[in-house]
């Protein structure tokens, strides 16, 4: 196996604290109330938001606030081995933690008895899809005009070889020592999504968290830029 990091350079020539290229476009779908398309390294992700709208089935509605639904879904051709259509255990877990991450950023009490549905389609997957998906969903929610206290920006950091690095690529994820995807609310820096697996000392974990938070701040800038562009385009029309 080739080394994942050598002379401070990673296989794709990135520095340890360097993120893969990220670009976001808001308002790409016509029928959704809000949407966003995102490319992050080789990841391609599209998010669509519907709502607030009538809650179906009605018995799950909440008289105090809107309920949130989140569906993370991979296209069959998004990975080398065909992904069987439909939810599996992994996507169900990702949908759950993503939904919870967004809940604290949204002002749901304005829309009792309604639901807001978020659908994210992963068209091309190359490590980091849950961060890509959550980041796109947050832009789509803003695009839909759902009132938010703050955005949610997500990024992972991890450990390859002996080093803590930002935003693991596919081979780094497969052969690395630990992966820590997080999401924060950029204004406060509070962590709203946090998962980890691998093998880290507490010190390394702390360092990873700090680096991932920095990544989230960069992601947040891209989110703002996408929304601004959309806004300017609409202004210009």
């Amino acid at each position, binding site marked *: 196996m080739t080394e994942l990091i050598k002379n401070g350079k990673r296989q794709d020539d990135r520095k340890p604290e360097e993120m893969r290229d990220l670009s976001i476009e808001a308002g790409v779908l016509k*029928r959704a109330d809000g949407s966003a398309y995102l490319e992050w390294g080789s990841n391609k992700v599209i998010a*669509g938001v519907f709502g607030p709208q009538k809650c*179906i089935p009605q018995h799950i509605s909440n008289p105090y606030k809107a309920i949130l639904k989140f569906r993370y879904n991979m*296209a069959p*051709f998004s990975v080398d081995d*065909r992904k069987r*259509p439909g939810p599996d255990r992994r996507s169900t877990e990702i949908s759950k933690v993503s939904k919870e991450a967004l809940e604290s950023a949204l002002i749901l009490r304005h829309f009792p008895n309604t639901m807001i549905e978020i659908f994210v389609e992963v068209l091309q997957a190359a490590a980091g899809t849950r961060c890509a998906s959550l980041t796109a969903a947050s832009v789509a929610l803003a695009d839909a005009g759902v009132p938010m206290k703050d955005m949610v920006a997500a990024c992972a950091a991890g450990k390859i070889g002996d080093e803590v690095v930002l935003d693991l690529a596919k081979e780094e994820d497969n052969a690395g020592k630990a992966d820590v995807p997080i999401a924060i609310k950029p204004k406060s820096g509070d962590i709203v999504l946090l998962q980890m697996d691998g093998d880290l000392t507490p010190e390394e974990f702390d360092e990873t968290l700090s680096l991932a938070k920095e990544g989230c701040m960069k992601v947040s800038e891209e989110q703002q830029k996408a929304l601004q562009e959309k806004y300017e385009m609409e202004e210009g029309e």
Partner: protein
Amino acid sequence: MGNLSWNVKSKYIHQLAEKGERQDKRDMYKYREIDIEPNYIDNALGSARVKIGETDIVAGLSFDVGDPYSDSPDKGVIITNNELGPIASPEFESGPPREDSIELSRVVDRGIRESGALDLKELCIEEREKVWLIFLDIHILDYNGNLFDASELALTTALKHGHLPKYEDEKIHHKEEGEKIPLKKLPIENTFAKIGDKIMLDPCLEEEKSLDARITFSTTEDGLCAVQKGGSGSFTQEEVMKHLEKSFDHAEELRKQIP
């Protein structure tokens, strides 16, 4: 369907059709703007993104090696599927209509299968033992009508530009391009909607919801290979034959747009 404001809208679409007009000012026999992007998914060895107006779909191929069917031991296998998911339209909020999705898969599959466009014998690796399985997956992102034509266009494009993966030592190397996919013809589908007694090409979603009857012709450079009528209305034999002829022209028009 039992919705009041929708009934008003639908009546309006019927009135327009009566006059030979459409909401978006289109000619009765004209496609919306078409955009075709081959190799849209880097991960896939064959893929395409196709937009017809606001309808936006991605098709991608996946590959496996498996047993042939016992009644065609020297032929590869194709499996066509689609995800007509909730992201594509608020219509599907309470779950997509399963029968529509199945009809879509089966009709675009027939376009490719019955036309003989794909030489399934070239997908045989070892008779009776091992053949290529090609999964043709259609993923619908934005749905504004006429999924039949868009899906067939995307699959034909993906197949035309597609490669099999390398297969060595009983292993599939998904990352490495092998031989070209043996696509011999370019099957195209053209769908017409009948609203009242007027017939129009390439219905958008609201036209689909208002239509009385629908007919899809699947043709190749060589001739007709499949037909599917839908909707609760009817066609006369003359209407069928007249639009089959139109279909050959429109198919040629689309075929030229495939890069």
